[in-house]
């Protein structure tokens, strides 16, 4: 049934033999994809531990965390986190999570592994760039982590690293000397890695599609990675210059971001006339698209997986979803100013940024309606990946709704510096994207490892995580409405003291939800080595990755290139089986 005919070979490299070439400096997109996912896994647990430390301190400010004074004698003397060290933890948590988890796993990780397979290619267009892309990202991660171990500790300017706090050096606080420089170098390297990756994704999608794989026949996940690559290409090409200018301000004495007559720690800073707002513009022109770099692959993964378990095509058709994702990508570049409502910008500019922000709800709502409408009346197969898809829709709606409020400058002025925003972006970007990653891992593990993940453990993991994230982030909305400011390490003001029990509840929920992730870790590692063998197409899915063996051979399709005859989501058709693979020739009855 899988008609394979001889198609041109695109790459001449033969399967590597040595361990280093096979698993370390590999040119194979599948190995590189797994390397990205592995790096993201290390990063996500590190980021989670950092959030635990912050949460424990927020709930029980006088609790001495055992052993923390050994790791950072200055930041946590006697195990008690200082306000500065709290900010350092926050900075590192945000940076690690946004860059090394939410960008690495759903986009670079899954994209590298499955984009070439889903379009019937043997590999990415430029395997060497692909390898350089991962290893540049890896070095960026090491440079960032090194900030924990330099003299004055990690930076404290937040993942946004606003100038002049980030641009004046050691006078601005612990971590602002070497730590902040390492941050800027790390993020600059990260940009280079992602630019190489995006270049590969775009060229591969446009030019290496197999016979019959028209653009309209590409699975939605591939569409999402392609659109994300287009977003990332411009976004990271904007952040890289910003990082270069920041490094120059810090090390060469230039004044791009540092204003004149600035006195920090009783010292007049030797700078003239720079613009702190310039940094905010450059950063958020990257920063808002970055949010979509994290979430659009989630859109694609969910849209790819949901029809498999609903056993019917996406309501409204793939073209509408593609249009929605393209609209999201386009709009992501028009709205960066909504992060800067409090920067003192002209109120008229605020309206100019507010309107497109509200327009973003239209493609988002179309996507959500398509998912929920597809589920309606379907004979669902409630597997773990399916549950994570439904969870994605839930948290995306919950987080998206608070976006209505924040998009309006007058309301945002009150809510911007509160936990309301923390709740909003964690739901809509972080948790939603993480649910997309989980859905992807449970769905594609049979293909990546050739082994099935444990469903019982998977369902435990889902329900504990799903309930847990609501317990963590739902109360934060109320904290924000009550005026609970964010980025504070302790709440001693009179009006904040009554809110501390809520923080204790959130902390307990965070610890338990975090602990539940070890179920996933155990399940993943156990599956990788000892799980039951997976068939080639365990979910009865239609796209090309399920037409090859589990795991795929080195060249993905065993010496042949598949030929594509069908659209990607032919589910619920009449016949001996209720689906038609993309590689099945012939016309579908009733189509």
């Amino acid at each position, binding site marked *: 049934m899988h008609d394979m005919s*001889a198609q*041109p070979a695109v790459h001449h490299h033969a399967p590597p033999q040595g361990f280093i070439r096979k698993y370390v400096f590999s040119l194979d997109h599948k190995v590189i994809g797994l390397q990205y996912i592995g790096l993201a896994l290390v990063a996500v647990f590190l980021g989670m531990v950092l959030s635990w430390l912050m949460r424990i301190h927020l709930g029980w400010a006088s609790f001495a965390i055992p052993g923390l004074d050994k790791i950072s004698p200055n930041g946590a003397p006697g195990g008690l986190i200082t306000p500065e060290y709290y900010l350092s933890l926050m900075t590192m948590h945000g940076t690690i999570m946004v860059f090394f988890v939410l960008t690495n796993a759903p986009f670079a990780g899954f994209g590298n592994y499955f984009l070439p397979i889903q379009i019937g290619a043997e590999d990415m267009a430029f395997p060497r760039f692909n390898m350089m892309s991962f290893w540049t990202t890896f070095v960026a991660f090491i440079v960032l982590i090194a900030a924990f171990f330099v003299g004055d500790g990690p930076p404290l300017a937040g993942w946004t690293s606003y100038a002049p706090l980030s641009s004046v050096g050691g006078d601005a606080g612990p971590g602002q000397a070497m730590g902040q420089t390492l941050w800027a170098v790390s993020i600059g390297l990260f940009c280079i890695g992602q630019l190489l990756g995006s*270049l590969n994704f775009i060229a591969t999608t*446009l030019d290496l599609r197999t016979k019959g794989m028209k653009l309209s026949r590409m699975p939605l996940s591939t569409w999402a990675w392609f659109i994300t690559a287009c977003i990332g290409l411009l976004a990271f090409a904007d952040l890289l210059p910003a990082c270069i200018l920041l490094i120059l301000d810090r090390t060469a*004495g230039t*004044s*791009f971001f540092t204003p004149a007559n600035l006195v920090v720690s009783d010292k007049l800073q030797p700078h003239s006339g720079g613009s702190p707002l310039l940094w905010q513009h450059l950063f958020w022109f990257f920063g808002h698209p970055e949010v979509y770099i994290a979430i659009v692959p989630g859109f694609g993964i969910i849209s790819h997986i949901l029809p498999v378990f609903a056993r019917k095509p996406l309501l409204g058709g793939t073209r509408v979803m593609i249009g929605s994702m393209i609209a999201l990508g386009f709009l992501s570049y028009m709205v960066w100013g909504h992060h800067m409502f409090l920067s003192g910008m002209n109120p008229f500019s605020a309206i100019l940024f507010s309107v497109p922000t509200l327009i973003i709800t239209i493609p988002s709502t179309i996507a959500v309606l398509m998912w929920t409408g597809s589920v309606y009346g379907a004979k669902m197969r409630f597997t773990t990946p399916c549950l994570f898809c439904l969870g994605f829709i839930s948290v995306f709606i919950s987080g998206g709704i608070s976006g209505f409020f924040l998009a309006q400058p007058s309301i945002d002025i009150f809510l911007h510096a509160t936990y309301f925003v923390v709740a909003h972006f964690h739901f809509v970007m972080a948790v939603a994207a993480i649910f997309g990653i989980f859905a992807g891992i449970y769905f594609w593990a049979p293909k990546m490892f050739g082994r099935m993940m444990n469903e019982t453990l998977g369902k435990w993991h889902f329900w504990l995580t799903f309930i847990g994230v609501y317990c963590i982030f739902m109360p934060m909305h109320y904290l924000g409405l009550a005026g609970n400011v964010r980025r504070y390490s302790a709440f001693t003001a009179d009006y904040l003291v009554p809110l501390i029990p809520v923080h204790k509840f959130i902390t307990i929920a965070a610890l338990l939800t975090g602990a539940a992730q070890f179920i996933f870790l155990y399940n993943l590692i156990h599956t990788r080595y000892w799980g039951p063998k997976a068939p080639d197409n365990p979910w009865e899915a239609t796209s090309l990755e399920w037409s090859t063996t589990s795991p795929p051979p080195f*060249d993905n399709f065993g*010496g042949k290139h598949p030929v594509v005859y069908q659209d990607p989501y032919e589910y619920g058709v009449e016949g001996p089986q209720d689906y038609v693979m993309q590689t099945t020739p012939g016309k579908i009855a009733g189509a």
Partner: protein
Amino acid sequence: MASTTYPPGGPAVSATAGAVGARARAGARAEVNPQIAATQTGIWVCVCAIFMCFAAFVSALVVREGTGADWQRLVLPRVLYFNTLILLASSYTLGVCSRRFAAAVRQHAPDGYAQFPRALPWLYATIFLGAIFIFGQWLAWRTLSAEGLYLATNPSSSFFYVLTAMHGLHVLGGMAGLIYAARRLGRGVVSAQVSALGAASTYWHFMGVLWVFLFLVMAMRL
């Protein structure tokens, strides 16, 4: 698609003769070797990313100029006019090289081995002119520093050094690409030669266009 072999490691794949520079010129899309097409797409994507980088630098320049009261205009070193001519001349020599290559490559099978002695000298000339350009940019830096204008002296000199340094780095990358293409033209498979020279020349011409843009911005703003 003719003369194609699988598995990987076999003889090289087909190339449409004369596909240097533009996929459109090569006729129907299906005739273009996918790896050549991907390389061309890749280099254009690369051009977009680099342009975005410099758009960010230039918008930072415009914002910075309008923000502080410390902006002091500087007189651009005269050697920059000479450098501009050199870079434009290098685009011309590269164009001659491409045309001679395109004329000769038609007589070769895409998966055959070939040398292009009539095109190569023009490629070497391009690389040489690129080196002169870099040397000229260094002279411009020397001129400014002799006037006491360093990286951190004032914002306009900061932007001058940043823009010229970033552009210079990209030109060095382009020279590496040209040297790679020259090595390919000296000995290699025709399809790989088409791919390498096509990518390197698209990039190199873009370096010229980018320099003219930056030079105009600096002449008007710095």
